[in-house]
């Protein structure tokens, strides 16, 4: 035992600790993704893409037969939903026209909502069991930067870019413990913070914290991004209130959110590289 540690153990551990600290410092002092990380991921990215494509193709072939009946049934349901939505759309168009007229009368700026996005394929899902991340196949060469929002084609929030290299980027999803974003309950306009929680991550849920004392969230309430501060676009759907809980101290309440997007089903996402929103 003594020989084991005096002979080489301490030396190897000291070398490891030195290299680990050097890597940490390299990352800490890099304003964006550091050179070595970028190099390793740029080289490995095409291999990951090929592996994922093959795996997806196999999964598609396997699911094709079993999904057919379910898709037929879903198609019928969607046709009914479209009829309802068309009626709602006609009313919304009238409301929008009225809104535009009133804004002109009050001399307010015209509402605008421009999102510039880049389409991306998911190369790898949940690289680790301890985090909820997605590896995307586009990076800085497409204008992707740390802090960009990632959404689905329906405008549902998937996560935020937390690492970006030449031809790859990492999206930290709404379930991850590192995720935190300003949120708003659509029905009541209450502002809160949507954040990942370790215990909820495995259940596929997240937490809506810092609710004000007089907030009255209800199960089923839609929660969207607040857009306060201008870092992220507003009105991106985060999820729906699933349960309302009280903190351990019994003083504050928080809500458990079910994300609007089914992360395990995602193949393609959109990175919002720039946005202009006038409320």
């Amino acid at each position: 035992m003594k020989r084991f540690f005096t002979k080489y153990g301490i030396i190897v551990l000291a070398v490891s600790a030195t290299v680990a600290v050097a890597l940490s410092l390299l990352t800490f002092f890099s304003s964006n993704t550091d050179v070595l990380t970028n190099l390793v991921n740029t080289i490995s990215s095409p291999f990951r893409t090929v592996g994922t494509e093959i795996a997806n193709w196999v999964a598609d072939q396997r699911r094709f037969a079993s999904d057919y009946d379910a898709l037929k049934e879903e198609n019928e349901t969607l046709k009914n939903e479209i009829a309802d939505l068309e009626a709602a759309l006609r009313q919304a168009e009238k409301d929008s026209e009225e809104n535009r007229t009133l804004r002109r009368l009050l001399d307010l700026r015209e509402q605008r909502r421009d999102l510039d996005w880049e389409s991306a394929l998911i190369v790898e899902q949940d690289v680790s069991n301890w985090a909820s991340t997605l590896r995307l196949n586009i990076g800085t060469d497409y204008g992707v930067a740390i802090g960009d929002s990632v959404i689905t084609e329906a405008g549902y929030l998937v996560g935020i870019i937390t690492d970006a290299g030449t031809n790859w980027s990492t999206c930290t999803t709404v379930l991850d413990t590192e995720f935190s974003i300003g949120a708003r309950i659509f029905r009541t306009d209450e502002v809160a913070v949507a954040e990942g929680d370790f215990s909820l991550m495995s259940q596929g849920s997240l937490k809506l914290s810092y609710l004000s004392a007089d907030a009255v969230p209800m199960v089923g309430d839609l929660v969207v991004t607040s857009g306060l501060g201008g870092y992220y676009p507003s009105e991106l759907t985060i999820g729906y209130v699933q349960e309302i809980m009280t903190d351990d101290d019994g003083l504050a309440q928080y809500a458990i959110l079910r994300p609007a997007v089914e992360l395990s089903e995602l193949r393609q996402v959109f990175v919002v590289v720039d946005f202009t929103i006038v409320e």
Partner: protein
Amino acid sequence: MPKRYIVLKWLAYGGATAVLLLLQTGVFHYIRLWGVVPFLAPMVVGVAASFEDGIPSSLFALVFGILCDLGGATPVMGFFTFLFPLAALTASFLAENLFSPGFPCSLVSSFFCYLIVAGGRIILFLIDGETGVWDMWYLALREFLVSLPLLAVVFPLFRWVHRRTTFDY
């Protein structure tokens, strides 16, 4: 042993590890049980250390740790760089002093590698203010149990590399 044989041996281990990582990305990553996917990296470190001496296996673990830190979802940069050599030293100590090399030794070595890596992650989560330490240990246990059957792939592969590259001088 001549230096070129030592280099060849560790290149062979590197090649075997690359094959395992490809399998992890293309196949094992899609096997989800109890909400977790298998995680091969600690097993690679543990099994290699159970076959080889402390210094070379911990240096192999150091290089592997650096690559995992740079290419994977590391909780904090330098995490695997520090913990993998520590895990390799522990596994190597067990193999040299408590067990004779073989499947049980690789199993116990791998267990300690998973334990060290999971312990490191949990400490980082607790420092970060996360609660639910039992949920974390439960996740660690599930990760180990789901990864465990893959020892049936890793052990024979590394034993083959060990036998093909080890000569008596």
